[in-house]
């Protein structure tokens, strides 16, 4: 590997930040008690979990007992959708989501379709935004759940969640029945407002490893009174809403990382959106036939997504990897399912352009020098690959 390692794949995962790891360490082998036990050793763990819950509640602007700790974003999304759908199905079996959700939501919707639910997948415009009027039009008197992601993991588009929340609330009042509103905020944490009252959501998913917390840990916010059938049965943990011995270190690390991410949010976002905009401006100057995917401004401060015409994404990633740069692509050749990104095709991209995509997602450790290096490195890689191609404009 080259000496330098420039990590530009923070949407995939992030390193655990030192403050979080340090807070976690005592709970592996010293304060290892099971939080459900009554002796003092275990009550230390119980206290740590309770404090983490309070931190989470402060950030979400909710009651501590509306915070459920899970094993990650995928579990939070699954539990949110299945939990509401199965609890509410006597009132209706219609669910609304969008075409650009993470698979944790989309595949859960397909699972629910097997159980008799009908799902509307709202389209997005060419820049990745869901139209409020389409959402409004999709709501029927059978609708029990709307799940729209806050910010997209591939091309960073930010949805107008607060407006949607208000709309759903007013439609639901008009219909005289409650419609639960879930948002997958996995990519939003540390970048966007997470206050559940301002957002008007009833459920919200987070995943710790996306904000410098540990893998295998997540949060589900569940508003009191929302219809909910727990999806993991067993002991009485999490007030019976998510059974299983608490992952004390994971929970502690989640809370510490979330608190710090939110505290630094403004400053980090400002800095990263500067780097982002420089990449968005400079790469197309240096690489012909580059297309920016997603909305130019309503996008996450750390997200860049390009398609380079005529180039497969995977060898671009490998070329970058050789140069010490970590990035990702919506190409089928980088996914186990061998399908091109459903998000990029939902924007209207051809399969070819989806295969040709490159996602760069910045993080708190990235610097201007990293961007310099990227801008030096990337154009040559793309040019070299284009030169191999039978579709290349013949050089002369």
């Amino acid at each position, binding site marked *: 590997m080259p000496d330098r390692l420039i990590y530009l794949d923070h949407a995939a995962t992030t390193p655990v930040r030192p403050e979080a790891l340090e807070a976690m360490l005592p709970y592996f082998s010293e304060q290892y008690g099971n939080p459900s036990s009554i002796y003092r050793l275990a009550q230390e763990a119980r206290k740590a979990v309770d404090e983490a819950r309070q931190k989470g509640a402060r950030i979400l602007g909710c009651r501590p007992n509306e915070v459920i700790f899970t094993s990650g974003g995928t579990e939070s999304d699954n539990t949110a959708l299945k939990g509401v759908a199965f609890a509410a199905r006597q009132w209706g079996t219609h669910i609304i989501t969008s075409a650009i959700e993470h698979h944790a939501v989309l595949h859960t919707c397909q699972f629910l379709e097997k159980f008799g639910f009908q799902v509307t997948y709202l389209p997005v415009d060419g820049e990745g935004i869901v139209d409020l009027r389409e959402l409004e039009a999709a709501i029927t008197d059978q609708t029990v759940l709307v799940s729209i992601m806050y910010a997209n993991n591939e091309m960073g588009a930010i949805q107008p969640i607060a407006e949607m929340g208000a709309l759903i609330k007013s439609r639901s009042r008009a219909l005289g029945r409650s419609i639960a509103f879930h948002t997958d905020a996995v990519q939003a944490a540390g970048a966007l407002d997470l206050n559940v009252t301002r957002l008007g959501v009833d459920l919200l998913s987070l995943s710790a490893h996306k904000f410098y917390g540990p893998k295998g840990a997540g949060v589900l916010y569940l508003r009191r009174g929302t219809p909910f059938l727990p999806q993991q049965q067993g002991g009485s943990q999490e007030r019976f809403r998510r059974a299983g011995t608490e992952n004390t270190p994971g929970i502690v690390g989640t809370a510490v990382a979330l608190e710090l991410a939110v505290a630094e949010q403004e400053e980090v976002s400002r800095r990263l959106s500067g780097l982002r905009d420089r990449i968005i401006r400079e790469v197309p100057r240096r690489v012909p036939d580059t297309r920016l995917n997603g909305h130019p401004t309503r996008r996450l401060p750390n997200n860049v997504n390009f398609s380079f015409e*005529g*180039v*497969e994404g*995977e*060898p671009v990633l*490998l*070329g970058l990897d*050789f140069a010490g740069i970590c990035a990702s692509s919506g*190409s*089928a*050749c*980088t*996914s*186990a399912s*061998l399908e*091109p990104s459903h998000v990029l095709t939902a924007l209207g991209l051809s*399969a*070819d352009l989806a*295969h040709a995509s490159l996602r760069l997602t910045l993080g708190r450790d990235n610097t201007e020098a990293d961007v310099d290096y990227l801008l030096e490195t990337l154009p040559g890689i793309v040019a070299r*690959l284009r*030169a*191999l*191609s*039978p*579709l*290349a404009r013949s050089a002369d």
Partner: protein
Amino acid sequence: MASMYYSELALDHAESPRNVGVIQEADGIGVEMNPVCGDLLTLFIKVQDGHIADAKYQIRGCAGATAASSVLSELLIGASLEDAGRITFQSVLDALGGLPPSKLHSAALAEVALKKALAYYQSRGTR
């Protein structure tokens, strides 16, 4: 991607593909595309005295496809037509030291392009 270990040799071929290019007066041309992921390979061969005198190609696709094409060109150059006819995706895999399971189609792409190039050559009649 479930398990994506390119061998060192495959990576080397992908990074520095051998024999890239076009043979202007090729004796055989094979074009093959993988409809799923869009990989596109154009293979050119030059035949002399019953042997493959030269082989070149152009490729748009993943690193696996590039490596497969590159190693195929190495296998071809100097081979008798008979031996060339026996090259399969397995020969390509063996020569690369394997490809990840999700990239087997890249070796298949190379095999098919070769079959097409040889058929093209045969269809023109021996000269």
